[in-house]
């Protein structure tokens, strides 16, 4: 019965992703007809396939970034036994953006930016955890407050650098702050993939432990989990995922918060099912959100973070009302 529920959730997530990908390839500044794209002959068909092939890297990057953020959010929620945990709210995304922005301002190669973002994400995680620690333990209330402080700090840093920067640097800063998938290239997709795969693999290996953490840290300890080392590893893996996502797409909120909730409603809270379903649903959400950001006010583009918030906030409110 439960296997059926998981299979159903997985199938639904895959179907959503497929729909989102088709939508993502067809819409944008120019709307393509599916008929032209698949069966079109002559100039119309060629144009459609050319435009779609130009959009493909952007769709792929959106999918990967969505995966990373959703999986990081799901793992953090279980680890901290807190449905509000999310790489954005905990300040991890802000740290990552600040790290990547500093690397960009310092004139380092864009290839270093994931490493810089990862370093920023880790730095922020460590600082937030240190602020939240009381009596040798991570206090959850304090954790969220510490995340708030970190976010305020990092956005101040980003704004300060933005205000003194000029030209290209200012545009780059804006990219980190607002989040964007506009600069997608096949190279970026290939560069992000290994980070995503590594973080996901580690977290899936910890799915059993995360199930015990979701009932409580003491629960995990009493059942034989080495709590401190597990926390470090899960924090590192989710910082890696967040850092990589931010390095290639800037700060995009709500994905890590919203997707695990929706996935949990579909398949329950067993992390062995929740992490993969969140990954696929996260990909679907961000591909769809990016397509909307390109087409809603074409030729102008909305920041994709504004779209995720606009989709996410009402659904989140609905989830909250439905599960008191």
């Amino acid at each position: 019965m439960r296997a059926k529920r998981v299979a159903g959730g997985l199938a639904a997530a895959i179907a959503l992703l497929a729909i989102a990908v088709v939508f993502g390839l067809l819409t944008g500044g120019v709307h393509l007809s599916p008929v032209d794209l698949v069966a079109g002959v002559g100039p119309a068909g060629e144009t459609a396939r050319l435009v779609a092939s130009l959009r493909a890297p952007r769709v792929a990057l959106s999918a990967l970034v969505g995966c990373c953020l959703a999986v990081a959010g799901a793992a953090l929620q279980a680890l901290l036994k807190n449905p509000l945990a999310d790489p954005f709210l905990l300040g991890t995304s802000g740290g990552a953006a600040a790290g990547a922005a500093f690397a960009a301002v310092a004139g380092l190669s864009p290839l270093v930016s994931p490493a810089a973002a990862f370093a920023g994400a880790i730095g922020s995680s460590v600082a937030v955890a240190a602020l939240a620690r009381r009596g040798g333990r991570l206090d959850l209330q304090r954790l969220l407050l510490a995340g708030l402080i970190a976010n305020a700090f990092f956005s101040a840093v980003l704004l300060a650098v933005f205000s003194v920067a000029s030209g290209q640097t200012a545009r780059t800063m804006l990219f980190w702050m607002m989040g964007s998938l506009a600069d997608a290239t096949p190279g970026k997709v290939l560069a992000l993939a290994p980070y995503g795969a590594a973080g996901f693999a580690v977290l899936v290996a910890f799915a059993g432990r995360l199930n015990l953490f979701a009932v409580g840290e003491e629960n995990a300890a009493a059942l034989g989990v080495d709590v401190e080392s597990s926390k470090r590893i899960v924090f590192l893996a989710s910082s890696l995922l967040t850092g990589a996502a931010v390095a290639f797409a800037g700060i995009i909120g709500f994905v890590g918060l919203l997707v695990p909730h929706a996935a949990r409603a579909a398949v329950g809270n067993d992390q062995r099912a929740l992490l993969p379903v969140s990954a696929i649903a996260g990909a679907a959400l961000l591909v769809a959100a990016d397509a909307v950001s390109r087409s809603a006010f074409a030729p102008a583009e909305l920041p994709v973070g504004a779209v995720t918030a606009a989709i996410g906030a009402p659904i989140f409110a609905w989830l909250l009302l439905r599960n008191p």
Partner: protein
Amino acid sequence: MSTLLEARGLSASYGATPALDGLDAAIGRGELVALLGENGSGKSTFLRVIARIVPAGGGEVLLEGRPLAGFPRRATARRIAYLPQSTELVFPIRSLDLVLQGRAPHSRGFSADSAEDRDRALAAMRACDVEALAERDASALSGGETRRVFLARALAQEAEIWLLDEPTSGLDPRHRLEFLEVIARAHADRKTTVLLVTHEIDLAGEIADRVVLLRAGRALAEGSPRETLTPDRLREAFGVESRIVTDDQGRRRVVPYAPSR
């Protein structure tokens, strides 16, 4: 009787607040030991140190004469089951899955759901009268039902040592008796060693082989219920006066009352 668990000069604290302060106590194999003492005397902390939730600040706990900290965590989790006083469930979880968590220390990757694990979990739920709740969301159960699900989990864990933190609080009379019966049966049939924290003095007197009275993080007295649950000892431990009466079944009862001024 051989000593299974021993605390030597054990201390532990939460931040700057000391909870255990040089506790010495020995628990024999197969014993049912009741820990009594006023709030904050260190009873629960003692259980939590043995369950390896809270680290010892000084001194040590020995399991069969070897320091507990020297064992792999998973190895002691297979042998020691801990029943918390209360657990707030934030996320939905099927009751059966909660009971299956008792099998986690026995399983690779802490994920247990083989057919054998399921059978053991369901048998444990039957023994605790919660089999009918197996498919229900544990986060929506009543407090008493949740405790019984957690007891089923301790049973499914097949540990030789049970640490029970106020197991009977919040249970209605019938489920309280059934709960105690499950504990007594495990103690008798499986020779489970039980450490029981309770505020029910008469319960301790009835079911415990031995009582340890705690005060300010140390053992004030230990011995048979008859030796320890005396008006003098209880005055020292709790600051109350008490009378010993015999009920119409011939059982010894302790009736505390406020000290007269």
